[in-house]
């Protein structure tokens, strides 16, 4: 676990993990496994941090913990100033409910992260309607260089690169503060990979949100990320 804190360490961090441990509980025939041990990690607005490591080391698990999807066994996780995974907070004011939409994820397989029975446009408009946001679909589509015609298509009718850009556009509708990009290009072509990674970096920089790029490709992380976190067993 190595971490290099940037110079502006007094800036308020977007997400912070302190001494996070995670154990998978053992069952009848299997031993409990300690996946993460004493992980400390903070991300600051506008930076892109890479997370690499061999498969099975718990990269995606750490991403899920930071996103509030999986309570760690021990340790504290903060979103801004508020601590998540607290049992005492009331349901209404719980940061997991109030701040939920600012912490987003980009999936490895973009097509499956959209409901298959809706056109992509319906999925995007649904997000706007549910959260009562102003309609910024057109601007976001422009930012990811997508044609508005694509909104009429179903997820299975778009290529992987187009779908990944669509997923990025959907996430950006929510004006997130933190995005976990979990292997966003490992299922995409080489020529599309450069495009997607550059888009993610650009969009994040312009909107000031922090990105955690999970990838097993060290060269990729070293090219685009300002710092790199390496998990090892």
């Amino acid at each position, binding site marked *: 676990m190595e971490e290099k804190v940037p110079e502006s360490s007094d800036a308020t961090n977007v997400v912070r993990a302190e001494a996070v441990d995670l154990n998978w509980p053992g069952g009848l025939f299997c031993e409990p496994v300690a996946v993460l041990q004493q992980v400390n990690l903070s991300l600051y607005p506008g930076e892109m941090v890479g997370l690499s490591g061999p498969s099975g080391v718990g990269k995606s698990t750490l991403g899920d913990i930071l996103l509030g999807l999986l309570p760690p066994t021990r340790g504290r996780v903060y979103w801004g100033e508020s601590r998540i995974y607290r049992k005492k907070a009331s349901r209404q004011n719980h940061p997991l409910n109030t701040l*939920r939409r600012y*912490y987003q*994820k980009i999936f490895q397989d973009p097509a499956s992260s*959209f409901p*298959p*029975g809706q056109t992509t446009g319906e999925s995007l408009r*649904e997000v706007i309607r549910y*959260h009562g946001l102003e309609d910024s679909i057109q601007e976001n589509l422009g930012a990811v260089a997508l044609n508005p015609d694509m909104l009429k298509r179903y997820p299975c*009718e778009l290529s992987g690169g187009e779908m990944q850009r669509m997923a990025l556009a959907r996430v950006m509708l*929510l004006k997130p503060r933190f995005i976990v990009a979990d292997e966003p290009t490992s299922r995409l072509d080489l020529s599309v990979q450069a495009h997607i990674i550059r888009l993610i970096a650009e969009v994040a920089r312009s909107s000031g949100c922090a990105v955690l790029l999970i990838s097993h490709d060290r060269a990729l992380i070293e090219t685009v990320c300002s710092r790199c976190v390496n998990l090892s067993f």
Partner: protein
Amino acid sequence: MGVVRKLSGIFVERLPGDLSLMRLGPPIKKLCPSSPRQCGILLVSVILLVIIMGPSLIPRDPLKQNLSKTLCAPGSTHLLGADHLGRPVLSRLMYGGRSSLLISLFCTTISFVIGSLLGVLAGYREGWYDLVIMRLVDGTLAFPGTLLAIILAGTLGGSMTTLVFALSATMWCDYCRLVRNMTRSIKQSSHLEAGRIMGFNAAFLIRRYIFPELTPQIFTLASLGMGRTILNISGLGFLGIGLQPPLPEWGSMVNQGLGFLSEAPWLVAAPGIMIFLTVFGFQLMASAPHDRSKRSVVREK
């Protein structure tokens, strides 16, 4: 077709390849079914049309006896002949079909609603909800369904409400199990996780993400269930514990006609064929629809 598409959320794609229909003009081509599913829909709609519109076109009282026409053969006065009390078989068939279809529709709807609600609850909440609901399902399924229906209908008497209750007592379990298992598998999918991350609440997720994926399967099951319920109703009617005579009912009509099999075979054949056609139509309707993923492949190529 458009109505069906809206109703069920099932996506029907006309497949190219039925060459005999290709030569016909476009309007006729549109009416001709090209898949088993569409044949089923056509068959069921024809039967529905006959049952609903028929009595107003051929207004005859199915209960009125005319002893001068006893066992009258099919002909111009009685299109399908008359039974041993001189009642018109065609009218009795149409009115009998009304009650059969109505009962099975009620049954299916009730089991559909109860089963899917409990199933979604068990599948989505997991834990205790799952445990309790699924053990309830297991317990109910331990009774043989038809036997339970016979006992209930026999003891409570053969009214329409009793029949609905007796037949849907075990039917909801099928829906519950299907919906629960599918909900659990959809819950693992990454689009549901994406929905959760975007802050949608459970009710919204179930309505917008889970239910649309369940509909094709549920409607298939419902279509099979309709056919099976009609068979069950006729079976109960044949045993004499369904709808009570003089009310017309397909099963009891077969039973009554059995005594005159040699003199008037149409008394058994007509309701038998109707039962067969209706059940067959619903079974065909349940055959695999083209789902959305397949449709896209067809469109791309």
